[in-house]
């Protein structure tokens, strides 16, 4: 059933977010450390187990892929809920700091992506 897939994703996310908070607490910060990443690993592992036992049915998969494909519309809604005016109102110092971090980031991504080119069979 479709709800089984959605329930599986929800459970993985709840477990991941709780683990992320616990990890943050153990490290002494009041923040979620990698909750979504942990949830993704749980989902990959969970699906692998279900598949091996032949329980990964097509409807269950649909209950997961529906939300995966809702990702782009959700991101559009997220963009529309951003404090864009606040970003523009921070003055040129905040703008410069944000843009400098973005520019150096892109530069280093380009360098790091190329540095490993050819080291990995694709």
């Amino acid at each position, binding site marked *: 059933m479709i709800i089984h897939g959605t329930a599986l*994703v*929800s459970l993985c*996310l709840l477990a*991941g977010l709780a683990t*992320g908070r616990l990890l943050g607490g153990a*490290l002494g*910060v*009041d*923040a*979620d*450390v*990698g*909750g979504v*990443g942990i*949830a*993704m*690993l749980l989902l*990959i592992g969970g699906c*692998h187990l279900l598949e091996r036992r032949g329980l990964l049915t097509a409807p269950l998969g649909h209950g*997961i*892929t*529906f*939300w*995966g494909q809702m*990702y*782009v*519309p*959700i*991101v*559009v*809604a*997220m*963009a*529309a*809920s*951003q*404090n*864009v*005016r*606040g*970003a523009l109102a*921070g003055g040129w*110092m*905040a*703008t*410069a*700091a*944000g843009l400098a*971090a973005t520019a*150096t*980031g*892109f530069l*280093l*991504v*380009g360098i*790091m*992506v*190329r540095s490993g*080119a050819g080291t*990995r069979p694709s």
Partner: protein
Amino acid sequence: MTDVVRDTVAANGLLVAFAVVGATMLVSGWLSTCCTGGRVHGSAIAILLGLVAAAVAGGPRGVADVPLLAGVGLLGGPMLRDLAIVATAFGVRPQEFVRSGAIGIVSLVTGLCTAFVAGGVIAWTCGYRDAVSVTTIGAGAATYIVGPVTGSALGAGSDVIALSIAAGLVKAVAVMVATPLLASTIGLSTPRAAMIYGGMMGTNSGVMAGLAATDPALVPYGAMTATFYTGLGCLLGPSVFFMIARAIV
């Protein structure tokens, strides 16, 4: 009549959000084929339209502050966003994560360091010469969550904390807009590159919107590393980076 329409819309916010976002995607797809010949991805145009709408609405939560569009805030809020991100991991090959794990961690640390340094240097040149302000603004250049968390921990002034949030917001918006434009230049086309990109840029909303507008198949890989960035930044900001800033300033 208008009252009935308004009440129906107000009482069904999430449905309104589905309809409005669906219409936006439809228009964006049409603009993509008609005006750019498909070169600019429809998702990128939709995200840009979303940002413009948020700027026009003007509130701290963009269009979600308009009562009739409050449902957009729910649809784009952290709960459904995280659910959708986790769901994108369905069907990815775990070997990719293992194979690119090391470079992902390297990019996380490098990304946090460069953001702190870039933001800190700008703060310094703009006349903020105390270690607390330099660290807080540098942290804001990482993400708009790391900035205030670091600033509060160090006891920074509210004006400096506001600046750090603004710096993080500028970065998030800049990453959203620039990623689809720069994707081919920086080689953002493989799972490995997406993991490096996620760790380097780190800003969750920026990375996720940027990848969605570039190639949705790369989303789980970028999200995997980016999800550790803010937490790691909150950890390093008030500790390691503050000590370094205090030693230099």
